[in-house]
Structure formats: structure tokens, C-alpha cells
């Protein structure tokens, strides 16, 4: 059953040094508030999993939280590179990180397989691509019925998944709405899960087939208004495209990045629900 925690306490309890962490949200509902809390608590040696690392992982990698990244598209959408990711991969700053690279189809299937309790995902994938040459986690199996060669990748089973959503009710049941990405799969695939929400309400007030994640499969629910900014929350606020564009210049320069981090993450402190 979901426990209502402060963001500080949820991250302190479930994001341990060395953990495998998936923070999902496909452009929409990216859990930035939680990412900043991970940075503030100086978590280290994390294996970070995310289809699109986006600015959230650029920031966490630049802040030195990660030792490994598993991803399938590592850019600043519509803008260009993730400079902190590139600096870590290409020049080892602040330290070297290992990368393991997939296609979106493979990662989406791997999350789905994790949610399904399977050890592997089977897909018609990677045909003719060089990716299997540089990712030893991609294997191939033969269909016992047709003989067709199909790709297989290990299921994603994070130690902890963190996602953001619109709202939770008082039993911790969560509504995710709009571009739902792999959020539900990330939560179901993980040993522990933290869901940050814009608000906690008496009734979710949803139709029969909405994307609802029941409270009893979630470890912690955290009220974190604006917790996805500068990404967006459908029905609450829009994406700050300006911030995504501005990030390019900030992240390009180590000093500018460090100054940004000090001012906007460390000095800002937690802005929600600290009970510590």
C-alpha cells in the first residue's frame, strides 16, 4: 500500500547509492523535482534507465550521480545535444560513465516485459542494425513455430522507478493522463516505486478505462506541485520550450552548469513537503 511521504524522505529511503533507477515520462510528466532531490542528496553510482535521458538525466549525470546510463535516444528534443551526457561519455567529466544503448522499440518492450514479470522481451527488432555489435544484452532467438529469427532483450526490472502524474487519491491510487509513455510499466516492473503528483484529491473522478496505477503497487506517493517543470503536466501547465532551448548554453559549459546547479538545485532546496 502506498505511503504518503515527503520528497526528501521518499528519495532518502528508496534511492540508495548503487541502485538501478528508472525515472520515466516520455517528454510529458518528467519527474524533475525528484531528479533534483536525488542531486541534492548526492546519490552516487546510480545505473540510470530512461528511453530519452532528456535534461533530467543530463543534470543528474553532470552532478555526478550516475555510473551507467541505459537509454535509446539521448538528445535535447528539438534543440540538439545533451552536453553533460556527451561530456561524461566523451571526456569523462565529472567522471566516466558507461552507456548501454537500445532502440525505443527494444526499451519499450523491455519495460513491458518487466511489468509482465518475464525475464526477456521478444521483438522483431535490430534487423541490419549495428547496435547488437555494441550492446551485448541484445540476443536473438528462433521462433519454434516459424523459424523466424527474433531479437531478445532482458526485461527492465529497476530497484526503484520514479514517475510523475496528475493526481492521487487518499488511498494512493494514481491517475496518469495524456501521453502516458511507459510510466505504468516502469512502476509495475520495479521493486520499489515513487510517484510524485501535482495534487492529492478525494476522488480521481475517472472513466472506466483510464490509466490508473493502484496504490497497492506503489511504494510512496509524494505531493510535488509543478514537479515536472520544465517538462509539462497535461491539464496543469505547459512545457517550457524556452528552458529547453536555454539549457543548451547552460549545459555546454561546465562552469555555467555548476553555477546553475548551485543556484537552482542546491540553494533552492526542496520546495515541497519536507518533513525531515
Amino acid at each position, binding site marked *: 500500500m502506498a505511503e504518503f511521504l515527503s520528497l526528501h524522505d521518499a528519495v532518502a529511503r528508496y534511492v540508495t547509492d548503487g541502485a538501478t533507477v528508472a525515472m520515466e515520462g*516520455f*517528454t*510529458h510528466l518528467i519527474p524533475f523535482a525528484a531528479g533534483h532531490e536525488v542531486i541534492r542528496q548526492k546519490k552516487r553510482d546510480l545505473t540510470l534507465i530512461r*528511453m*530519452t535521458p532528456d535534461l533530467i538525466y543530463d543534470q543528474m549525470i553532470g552532478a555526478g550521480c550516475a555510473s551507467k546510463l541505459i*537509454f*535509446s*535516444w*539521448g*538528445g535535447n*528534443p*528539438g*534543440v540538439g*545535444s*545533451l552536453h553533460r*551526457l*556527451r561530456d561524461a*561519455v*566523451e571526456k569523462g567529466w565529472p567522471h566516466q560513465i558507461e552507456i548501454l*544503448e*537500445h*532502440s*525505443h*522499440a*527494444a526499451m*519499450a*518492450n523491455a*519495460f*513491458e516485459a518487466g511489468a509482465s514479470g518475464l525475464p526477456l522481451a521478444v*521483438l*522483431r*527488432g*535490430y*534487423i*541490419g*542494425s*549495428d*547496435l547488437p555489435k*555494441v550492446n551485448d544484452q541484445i540476443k536473438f532467438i528462433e521462433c519454434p513455430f*516459424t523459424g*523466424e529469427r527474433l531479437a531478445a532483450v532482458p526485461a527492465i526490472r529497476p530497484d526503484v522507478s520514479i514517475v510523475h502524474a496528475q493526481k492521487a487519491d487518499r488511498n494512493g491510487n494514481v491517475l496518469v493522463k*495524456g*501521453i*502516458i*509513455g*511507459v510510466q*505504468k*510499466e516502469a512502476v509495475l516492473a520495479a521493486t520499489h516505486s515513487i510517484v510524485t503528483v501535482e495534487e492529492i484529491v478525494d476522488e480521481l473522478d475517472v472513466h472506466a478505462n483510464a*490509466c490508473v496505477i493502484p496504490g497497492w503497487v506503489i511504494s510512496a506517493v509524494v505531493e510535488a506541485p509543478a514537479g515536472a517543470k520544465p517538462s*509539462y503536466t*497535461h491539464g496543469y501547465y*505547459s*512545457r*517550457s*520550450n*524556452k528552458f*529547453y532551448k536555454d539549457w543548451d548554453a547552460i549545459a555546454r559549459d561546465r562552469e555555467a552548469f555548476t553555477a546553475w546547479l548551485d543556484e537552482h538545485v542546491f540553494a533552492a532546496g526542496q520546495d515541497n513537503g519536507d518533513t525531515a
Partner: protein
Amino acid sequence: MSERYDSSEMMTVTAARALHNGQSCFVGIGLPSEAANLARLTHAPDVVLIYESGTLQTKPEVLPLSIGDGELCETALTTVSVPEMFRYWVQGGQIDVGFLGAAQVDKYANLNTTLIGDYTQPKVRLPGGGGAPEMATCTGEIFITLKHSKRTFVDAADFITTVGFGRDGTARDNVPNIGRGPTRIITDLCVMQPDTQTKELTVTSLHPGVTRAQVEEATGWAIRFAADLGETPEPDDHELEVLRDLKARTEKHHSEA
């Protein structure tokens, strides 16, 4: 080149015209998105646009900056999860055309969006595969649109992120359940298509005012020209007007927040 339009407009309009009304199209962000929406707003009102964020049959008023802009969801028929998108819609064979961009395209239409140089010591690290590797094999066919230059059109891609026809043109031979792959590459200079036998990319039409020499100069291999090389039809005024409106709306929208 005409004074009515520039080479980018020529490229986008030509790319848009490649799409037929009623086709389902998986749309990459950037130039493909611009072309696909232009098609929808002109000759192909019932083209079905699908973005990998799960938005099915979307009709954005402005072009998305990212693959998951709220606009895409708000104007979609429905929005599904990303696993469903890749399982039921892409792999399930429901998509006629995949519309892609790339950083590098080689002679056999292989696409590289991973890196320039060597994998362990890249000269330039690019974003990676995203939805492209499976889109290129699971959809009916692939259109590619990007600007022509020696840096982008290379003899052999540094890394095959997404297969066209492989290192020797035979990568799709005898592979079951695979699409036709890249059937058309639209640049700001010309249209290329794979040779029916060798699969080597061959220029099939030059844009108005473009010379063979210009294309040869901008291509990283000894590019061939089709025997019946044609001239690409010019954009009409309506297409140019709709395209310019779309771009102006888009620019205004994205500069606001």
C-alpha cells in the same frame, strides 16, 4: 532556383507530395514532421499521422518541438502507451510509411544517428536510434528527408543505426516480415531512389535549377543518375502559403513560453 521559394521549401513540398491521402505515416520530428503536416494541410487531408509518443491520428495546429508535445495528444484521435505504440502499431504492421531524418545517409540508404567516428572513442556523439531502427523494418516503406551535403551523404555510414539495404545492398533479401525500406530520399537538391537491382541510391529527379554537378559535389560517393532523370515539379502557391503559415504559427507558438 526560383524567387518564389527557397531550396528548403522545395525540399519540404516535395517530401510532402510523396505522401498519399489515407496513408498512415509514422512521423519523425523536424523536417519529416514539417513535410507530413504540410501534406495533411494540402493534398492529403486524411493522411494519418502517428508520433512515437503514442499519439495516433494527430492533427497539430503548430509543429511540435518534441515528439511528445501536448499539442500532439490534444489533437489526436487517441493516445496509447509507448509499449503499445511499438508493439501494436509499428511492429503490428499498421503503418504504411515511416518518415525519417538522419545525420548520415550512405550509398545503400543506411542511416546513422549514433555517432561519427569510432563507437568507443566517438568524434561526435549523436542522440542514438530512438524509434528509427524498427520503423525502418516494420513499416511498409520509408521516406527520408534531409539537407544534401558531403557530411550527410557518405559512402559508408560510420555506424548503421537503422538499416537501409545494408553494407552491400542485400540486407533485406530473404528476410521475412520486413518492409520495403527506404524508397525515396528527398533533399534540397534532388530526389533519390534505390536502384531496383543494386539498391544503390540513384538520383531520379533534380529540383528546378539544380545541376548534376551540384549534386555530385554534395555527395560523398560517385552518385549515379537515372537514365530517365526528370525535373522535380515546383511547389505551387497554395503549398507555399500553407507551409509559410505553418512555420510562422509554429515559431510564434514556441517562442511564447
